[in-house]
C-alpha cells in the first residue's frame, strides 16, 4: 500500500518535471518564432476552410497588425479572404506603399496559398522582435489574398485529381463543343482518391516498364519491342462521344483572362469570354483599382523554379529600359535567395501568354509584378545542372519517391476492368507529388519565397523630405527649397506610367503659405529650373526616382513658413514643417 503511494508520488514529480522541460526551454532557431501567438504547422496544405481558420486566428491574435476581410466571393460563394497586414496604429494602411500578394490562381498550383499565409504569419509574429520586419510593417502595407481560386482549390484537394487538374476555376464551360458542360471529367475508377494513369498490356505497344524502376512507364527504344499502350488519365467516356476526359471542370485558364493584351480563346486558349469574365479575377482587378497605393505585386504558381516577369508577349512594348532595370535589380537577388530558381522574362524565356495576370498589373496599373513558379527539380537531389523541364526528369521523381518518400508518392500499377478499354492497369504519380513540395521542404519553400517578396516589398518606394532650406530674398519674399528622397530601388511611379500617362503625378504641396511661384530644380548648382505656372503651391512631379532625390523650390510672400506635403498614390504621404 505504502509502496504504491510512493510510486505515485515519484511519478507525479517526474511528470511535472518533464512537462516543465518540454515547453519553454527549446533553443530558438534563427527564423520562425518559438512561441508564436498563432501556432500553424507549415508542413501541410490547407483547404479553403483551413485557410479561413488561419486567417481568423491571425487577425484575432494581432488586431493592430492583421485585419481580415474579403475582396469578393467565388463562383460557388466562397470568400476571397484578404489579409491586410501593416502597423495599423501609425498611419492609414491604404496610404502606405503596398505590396499585393496572391496565390493559387491555377487551382492545382496550391502552395502559393501557404507561402502567402506564411508571409502574413511570419511578419505579424516577428513584428517587434525583428527590427527589419518591424520597420517594414511600419512603412508598408501588405494585401494578401491566399487563394484567388478557392472553389477549385477545394475541388483539387477533396476530389479525384491529377497534379495538373483542374487548373481552371469551377465556372462550367463546354470544352468539346457538344453543347453540354463539364460532362466528361476524369473518374476515380478504383475509388482510391487518386486520378492516375491508365495503361493496357499490348505485345505491340510502344511503351515498356523502366528497367530501373518498373513503376515508371517509358517509351520503348526505336528498335525495341514494347509491352504497353499508354492510355489517358484515369477516366471513362462518360458521355459516349468516343473521347475520355474531354470536358472536365471549367475549362478556362484564369491566368489568360486579364485585361491587358487579352486575346480571344481561338488565339489564346483558355482566355474565356472577355477580360475579367471570371468573377474571382474581376474581384482582384476591382480591388487593385480601388487601391492605387499598390506598387508591388507577387503571384505564386508552380512549378519549375522561376521568377517570372512580363511582358507575356513580344508585341507588348510597355516595359521600358528603366523599368526593366528595376525588375532586374530585384529578380537577380531573387536568384541568389532561391537556389534552383531562374529570373526570366515570360515571353522570351518561357512562352507567350496573352492576358496574363502579371501583365495586367504592370500594363494597366504600372505595378512591378513577379510570378514565382514554386518548387524546383533542383530540390530532388540538389545537384546543379541544366534545367530538366518544369518537374524534373521522371527518373528523378521516381528515385526521390523511392529513397525519400518511401514509395508514398506513387500508386502502384493494379488491374482494373474498364468499360471502354477492357482489362487495364491503373497507376502512377499522385496529385500531391511533382508540383508540390513534400512536407519537409514546404517550410523552406515558404520562407525563401517570402524572403524574396519581402525584399521586393522593402524596395517599394520609401520617401522622406530630406532637407528644407529657406532663404530671404528681400522685397518681402522668401525662398523655400525642399529635397525629397526615395531611399529604395523602386520609383514612386513606374516609367510606364510616366510615359503613357495613366495615373496622376506625384504632388508636393506647400500649405499655409502665400505661394508666388513654384519650380522643379533640375540642377541646383547651375540653377536650371522648370517653373510650374499654374497652381504653384502644388507642384506636379513625374516621380521620385529610385535611390534619388528631387528638389523643389517655392517663392513665397513674407517669411518662409508653411507645411510641405509630399503626396503620392504609390509613394505614400510625407509631411514636414518649414523651416
Amino acid at each position, binding site marked *: 500500500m505504502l509502496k504504491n503511494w510512493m510510486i505515485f508520488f515519484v511519478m507525479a514529480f517526474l511528470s511535472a518535471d518533464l512537462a516543465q522541460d518540454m515547453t519553454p526551454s527549446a533553443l530558438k532557431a534563427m527564423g520562425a518564432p518559438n512561441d508564436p501567438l498563432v501556432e500553424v504547422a507549415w508542413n501541410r496544405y490547407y483547404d479553403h476552410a483551413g485557410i479561413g481558420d488561419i486567417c481568423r486566428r491571425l487577425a484575432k491574435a494581432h488586431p493592430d497588425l492583421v485585419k481580415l476581410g474579403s475582396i469578393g466571393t467565388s463562383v460557388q460563394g466562397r470568400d476571397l479572404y484578404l489579409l491586410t497586414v501593416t502597423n495599423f496604429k501609425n498611419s492609414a494602411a491604404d496610404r502606405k506603399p503596398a505590396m499585393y500578394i496572391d496565390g493559387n490562381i491555377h487551382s492545382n498550383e496550391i502552395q502559393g496559398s501557404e507561402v502567402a499565409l506564411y508571409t502574413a504569419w511570419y511578419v505579424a509574429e516577428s513584428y517587434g522582435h525583428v527590427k527589419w520586419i518591424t520597420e517594414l510593417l511600419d512603412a508598408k502595407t501588405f494585401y494578401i489574398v491566399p487563394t484567388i481560386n478557392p472553389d477549385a482549390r477545394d475541388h483539387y484537394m477533396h476530389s479525384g485529381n491529377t497534379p495538373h487538374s483542374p487548373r481552371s476555376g469551377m465556372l462550367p464551360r*463546354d470544352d468539346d463543343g457538344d453543347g453540354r458542360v463539364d460532362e466528361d471529367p476524369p473518374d476515380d475508377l478504383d475509388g482510391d482518391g487518386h486520378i492516375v494513369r491508365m495503361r493496357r498490356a499490348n505485345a505491340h505497344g510502344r511503351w515498356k516498364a523502366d528497367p530501373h524502376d518498373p513503376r515508371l512507364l517509358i517509351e520503348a527504344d526505336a528498335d525495341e519491342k514494347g509491352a504497353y499502350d499508354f492510355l489517358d488519365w484515369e477516366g471513362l467516356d462518360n458521355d459516349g462521344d468516343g473521347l475520355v476526359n474531354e470536358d472536365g471542370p471549367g475549362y478556362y485558364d484564369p491566368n489568360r483572362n486579364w485585361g491587358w493584351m487579352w486575346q480571344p480563346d481561338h*488565339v489564346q486558349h483558355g482566355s474565356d469570354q*472577355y477580360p475579367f469574365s471570371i468573377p474571382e479575377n474581376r474581384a482582384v482587378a476591382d480591388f487593385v483599382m480601388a487601391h492605387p497605393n499598390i506598387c508591388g505585386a507577387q503571384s505564386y504558381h508552380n512549378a519549375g523554379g522561376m521568377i517570372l516577369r512580363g511582358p507575356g508577349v513580344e508585341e507588348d512594348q510597355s516595359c521600358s529600359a528603366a523599368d526593366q532595370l528595376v525588375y532586374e535589380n530585384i529578380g537577380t537577388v531573387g536568384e541568389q535567395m532561391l537556389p534552383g530558381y531562374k529570373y526570366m522574362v515570360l515571353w522570351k524565356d518561357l512562352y507567350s501568354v496573352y492576358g496574363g495576370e502579371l501583365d495586367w498589373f504592370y500594363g494597366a496599373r504600372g505595378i512591378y509584378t513577379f510570378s514565382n513558379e514554386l518548387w524546383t527539380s533542383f530540390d530532388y537531389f540538389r545537384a546543379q545542372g541544366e534545367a530538366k523541364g518544369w518537374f524534373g526528369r521522371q527518373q528523378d521523381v521516381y528515385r526521390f519517391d523511392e529513397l525519400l518518400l518511401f514509395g508514398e508518392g506513387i500508386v502502384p500499377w493494379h488491374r482494373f476492368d474498364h468499360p471502354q478499354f477492357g482489362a487495364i492497369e491503373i497507376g502512377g504519380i499522385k496529385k500531391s507529388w511533382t508540383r508540390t513540395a513534400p512536407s519537409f521542404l514546404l517550410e523552406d519553400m515558404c520562407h525563401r519565397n517570402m524572403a524574396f517578396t519581402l525584399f521586393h516589398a522593402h524596395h517599394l518606394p520609401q520617401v522622406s523630405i530630406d532637407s528644407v532650406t529657406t532663404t530671404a530674398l528681400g522685397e518681402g519674399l522668401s525662398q523655400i527649397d525642399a529635397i525629397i528622397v526615395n531611399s529604395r530601388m523602386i520609383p514612386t511611379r513606374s516609367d510606364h506610367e510616366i510615359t503613357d500617362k495613366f495615373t496622376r503625378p506625384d504632388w508636393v504641396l506647400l500649405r499655409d503659405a502665400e505661394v508666388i511661384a513654384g519650380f522643379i530644380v533640375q540642377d541646383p548648382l547651375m540653377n536650371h529650373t522648370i517653373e510650374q505656372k499654374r497652381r504653384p503651391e502644388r507642384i506636379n512631379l513625374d516621380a521620385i526616382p529610385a535611390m534619388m532625390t528631387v528638389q523643389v523650390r517655392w517663392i513665397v510672400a513674407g517669411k518662409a513658413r508653411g507645411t510641405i506635403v509630399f503626396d503620392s498614390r504609390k509613394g505614400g504621404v510625407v509631411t514636414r514643417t518649414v523651416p
Partner: protein
Amino acid sequence: MFLAKYLHSFASIFIVSAIYSFVNGDVAAEYQNYHDLTVSLQAAARQHPSLLKIESLGKTAENRDLWLLTMGKAPADEKPAIAILGGVDAYDVAASELCRRFIDSALRAYGVVDSVTSILDRLTFYILPRVNPDASEQQFAAIKYDRVRNSRPVDSDFDGAIDEDDHDDLNGDGYITLMRIADPAGEWMVDPLDPRLMRRAAPHLDERGAYQLLTEGIDNDKDGAWDEDPAGGVNFNRNFSFNYRPTEGAGPHPVSEMESRAVADFLFSHPNVALVFCFSQQENLLHPWDVAGDADVQPGKPITRVLPKDGKFYKFIADQFKRSTGFDPPPPERGYGAFPEWAYYHYGRWSFAAPSWCPPAMTAGDTTDVKVKDDPLARERQLLAWTMKNAPNRFVEWSAFDHPDFPTQKVEIGGFVAGSLNPPSLTKEFTAFFYQLAAYLPKLDVQVKVEATDQFYRITATIINSGYLPTCSELGAKSKWLRKVKAELILSDAHKLISGNRFYLIDAIATVAEKQWSIIGKSGSTVKVIVASPSVGYVEKEIRLD
C-alpha cells in the same frame, strides 16, 4: 433585286411610318427620350404578348434600364436569332427610333404579310434599342451635345480630380458647339471653300494656321486645358476587347462597364445568335473590313482582318446595303475597342454595322458645289450642304463671344449642334434590310440514305444548307463560343454502331456536307438522324430500316 422583292411586299406597312415625317426642329421633338422610349416599347410588348417581350439587362449608373426586346414566336431562345443594337454611338438616338419602327412594322405585318410571318415564326430578333442610355439622354438634356460616354466618374486628365472641367454653354443657346480662337500659333484655319468649316492647315502646302479650335467651354480648373475632364465616363463603342486601346473614354479595361458587360453576357448566354447588326459610324456595310490573305493568319497570333473565306460574304451583303440605301460616306476612322468588330472577331458571329443616316452626296446646286480630291472635310461638307437645305437651325453660325480665358483674342462660337447626324432615316430600307439579313441566314435540311446488306445498314446523311451564308463563318468555326452543326445518329438498344462517331461537329457548311455511319440492327426498327446548331436550326429525320 432581292431587296426590291422585299420592298414591294412591305410597301403597304410603311404608310405607318409616314406619320414620323421630319419636322425641322430639335432632336427632342423627333426622337424619344429614355422615358418615352420605355413607355412606347412597354406598350408594344403589352399589345403583342405572343410576339414581343421586354426585359431589362440591368441598371445603368443613372438607374436607367438597358432594354432588350425579344421579337418572334416562342420559344424565342431556341430559334436562330439576329441581334440588333441601337445607340452603340450614344448620340445616335435615330438608331433607337429605327429599332422601334422596325418592331412596330414587324408586329403589324405579322399575320398579314406571309414573308414576315414566316420570318418571325422561324427566327428571333433580339433588339437592344439604346445600349448606352445615360449618354444618349444628353440629346434630350437642357444642354445638348453629342455625348458618347456613360456616367462612370473618371479622372480623364489624371490630375486627381474627377469630371472637373466639363463643357459650358457659354452663349446660352442650349448646345455645346465649338469655339475658334484667333491665334497665329493655332493649327486650324477657316476652310477656303466654306468659311463655316474649319480644318487643319497643311504647312507643306504653304497654309498657315490662324485659330485654336476647342469645344465650347471655359478652363474650369485652370489647368491650361479646356473641357479635358467632362462628365463621364466610358464610350460603349470603345470598351470592347478587339483592338482595344487604353485611351480616353475606353474604360479601365475591355468590357469594364455595366453596359458593355450586360450586352456581352447576354450574347454569350444566347448561343442561338447567328448574326449581329448594329447602328454605328464604325461601319462595315459601306466600307467592308480588310480581308486577310492566307499567309496573314498564324496560329496563336491575333486575327485582325476578316478571314479569307468570309470576305466575299461581307462584300456581297455590303454591296446590297449600299445599293438600297444610297449611302456613300467617306470611310470611317479606325475603331478601337469597337463593338461591331468585336462581334465578329471575338464573339465569332457575322457582324454588320451601318450608320443610321448619312448626308447624301453633294450635287450641283448645293451650298458649296465642289468636289475636292481627298477632301479632309468631305463628311462635314456633305452634312453642311444637307443641313443648310433641310434644317438650317442645326448649324450655329459663328459669332463673337467675350471669353474670359482669352481676354485679348477674338473668340467665336459656332458649328453643328448635337444630333445633327440624327435626321429621320430610311425606315423602310432598314426594315427591308433586316428581313433580307434574315433571308441570308443558313437553312438546314438533311436527306438520309440507307444502304442495307442483310441486317448491316450504311446510313448516309447529306446535310444541305440552302441559305446564302454558310452555317458559320471561317472565324466562327474557330470560336469556342459558336456551336457547330452537330450531326447525331440516335440508336436504340436494338442497334449496334459498327463505324462512325455517335455525333459529328461540322465546321462551316457552305452548301452540303456528308456524314456516314454503319450499324447492325433489326429490319423494321427505326433510327433517327438529328442535325442541329442553336444558331442555324434543327432538323430531324426518322428512318425505318428495311
